[in-house]
């Protein structure tokens, strides 16, 4: 039992943090919002150079051969930077799904993903929309009968749905499900979709941790500088205490996310319950953090000009993505009240 990341993992995290701090400034994000796609193939290529898209891909296929444990550390940084590129959809969800599917589909697409040459979008019945379908070269989509399909971009009808977070581009996608696109059906497809949901929710949870961390930092910085009644507003207990409350929520969401990553990486039986606990906690911390940081900023935080909303919008959109809070709460509730989940002291790690 050692609930820590090792030095290599922490070094990887700080490398990615430094890279994103230098490259992905609020100005870069705002500039991307002004483009048609909000995506930068150049930046995606550079992220590939530090190994992000192919992180979960075995080294034999040109990837980094790492697991969800490293992935959550890096996604925390993605959240901290409010990075808009498709790390969650392509790197955390599509790559392991393609690995599961195997065959020529995997052989064709995985090396290209690792090289930063393409984007693969993944749909799931939990949402009516597909993120990054507008820039995807390949789409992995469920059909009404529960089967799973690999659809080349040219065969998909993608209708963009403008949404509140300009960084998260979502679309309605229609396609003709047929034998030529079908890659899995029946129980196999159901199992793949179940894993996909867990991976997507885990990835969002990890990014939400980073988002929340950054919003608290921004708010604390602002309250050090802004003066009213002749002193920094951060010296007032009413302001201190509301930010302290967010910090409590954050620090008790973080280990739940890290444990869920371990469970997904090791295929632990309670994986889905652990992921839902993580997504719920991280989503609540980040959305609570967003409105608290706004309150700490006051009117200036309510402007488009102030950068705070870059993270607020991330908090809201990631909280809803890959299963809203009530969905994940429901999954844990069912496990507690309708399943045979072992509970009580000494059961926390029994599934490991």
């Amino acid at each position, binding site marked *: *039992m050692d609930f*820590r990341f090792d030095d290599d993992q922490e070094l990887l995290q700080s490398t990615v943090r430094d890279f994103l701090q230098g490259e992905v400034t609020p100005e870069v994000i705002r500039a991307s919002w002004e483009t048609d796609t909000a995506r930068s193939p150049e930046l995606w290529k550079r992220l590939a150079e530090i190994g992000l898209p192919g992180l979960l891909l075995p080294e034999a296929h040109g990837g980094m051969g790492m697991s969800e444990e490293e992935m959550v550390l890096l996604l925390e940084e993605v959240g901290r930077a409010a990075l808009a590129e498709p790390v969650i959809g392509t790197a955390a969800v599509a790559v392991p799904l393609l690995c599961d599917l195997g065959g020529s589909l995997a052989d064709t697409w995985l090396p290209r993903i690792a090289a930063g040459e393409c984007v693969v979008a993944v749909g799931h019945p939990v949402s009516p929309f597909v993120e990054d379908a507008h820039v995807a070269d390949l789409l992995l989509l469920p059909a009404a009968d529960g089967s799973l399909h690999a659809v080349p971009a040219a065969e998909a009808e993608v209708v963009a749905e403008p949404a509140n977070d300009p960084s998260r581009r979502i679309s309605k996608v229609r396609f003709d499900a047929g034998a030529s696109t079908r890659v899995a059906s029946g129980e196999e497809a159901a199992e793949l979709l179940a894993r996909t949901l867990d991976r997507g929710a885990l990835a969002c949870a990890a990014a939400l941790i980073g988002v929340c961390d950054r919003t608290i930092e921004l708010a604390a910085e602002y309250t050090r500088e802004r003066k009213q009644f002749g002193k920094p507003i951060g010296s007032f207990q009413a302001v201190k*205490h509301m930010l*302290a409350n967010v*910090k409590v929520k954050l620090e008790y969401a*973080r280990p*739940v996310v890290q444990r869920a990553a371990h469970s997904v990486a090791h295929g632990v039986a309670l994986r889905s319950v652990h992921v839902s606990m993580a997504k719920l*906690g991280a989503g609540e911390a980040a959305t609570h953090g967003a409105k608290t940081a706004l309150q700490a900023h006051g009117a200036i935080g309510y402007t488009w000009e102030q950068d705070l909303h870059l993270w607020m919008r991330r908090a809201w959109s990631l909280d809803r993505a890959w299963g809203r809070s009530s969905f994940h709460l429901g999954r844990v509730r069912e496990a507690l009240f309708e399943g045979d989940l072992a509970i009580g002291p000494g059961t926390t790690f029994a599934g490991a």
Partner: protein
Amino acid sequence: MDLDYTDDQKAFRAEARRWLEANVPSEPLLSFDTAEGAKQHREWEARLNAGGWAMVPWPVEYGGRGADLLEWLIFEEEYYRAGAPKRINQNGIFLLGPTIMEYGTPEQKARFLPKMASSEEVWAQGWSEPNAGSDMANIQTTALREGDHYVVNGQKTWASRGAYADWLFGMFRTDPDSERHKGLTFILAPLDLPGITVRPIEQLDGLPGFAEVFFDDVRVPVEHRLGEEGQGWTVAMATAGFERGLMLRSPARFQHTAMRLVELARANEESALPAIRDEVTRCWIAAEAYALETHRTVSRILAGGKIGAEASLNKIFWSELDLRMHELALEILGDRGELLPEAPSAVGVGSWLDGYLFALSGPIYAGTNEIQRNIISERILGMPR
């Protein structure tokens, strides 16, 4: 990241489980805040100590079994799983003990720790004074050096376990010209010294869980000073860190309550409405989160790390969770939640009412949660004082 137990850890758990199953009293003991209950609890502690389980992380020579903090968490899990009695000497074993381990002389360790482990000597806390609650640096009780003794005058209050304890630890002002955090010294005093008057105070449950302690020219030998003269605040902060963190309130306690809450909701389907079940689920998740965060902290400590201001995060989290769980249980019980244990209809109501009254003290003791929020915002978030 390795989240599996080693074979040694599994064997340790099995050994603890076997002993507890064979030795935990089948009937619950009376409250340790009654004379008869205090006696029962001391007997239980003596038995625990004879089995070598009184304070497993302590070195063998002080009554422990040299276990590490992970084994401590395992032992706590088994202790709560077995439904074993509350620890009457928690002020001693969980708070003062680790502080003596850090600041005590070899003589003090040998003198105090074994009798603490066995609960031959039960400890009371002497922090608060009438004018020093949250503002603990405002301590006014003096301990003035006269030769080999400190002469103590003044008053402590809200001294937990004061009514039935043998010793008291606390901070006293040894430099009468000093102010605030300076000039304070950490002193241990037997409660039977001439000049000490203990006046028990009935708590919200009607029992004397704490006491006022008056000092009138009380002579305490200098060798009962813990740490250096004037170093009291630093020593006390170490004790407070243990209190807020994993010693006093290990996760098993709250996981056990969360489990009982889930079981209560399952057994009372008609009153555990969907909205309540959602809240129960959140509580269970929070108890797991507390366990996970504690294991993360312990892993860090075992690798040479320290706990700092983040102990304040713990304290807010567990105290609010404990209160929430008891509120929900009483909501599920409805009118029956009002019943005292002796009421004819008090069947299946458990100890939730009692637990609720105790949980209400959680956000107050060990430093109010408002003080913890100040610490978090100033020392972790870097906000101005």
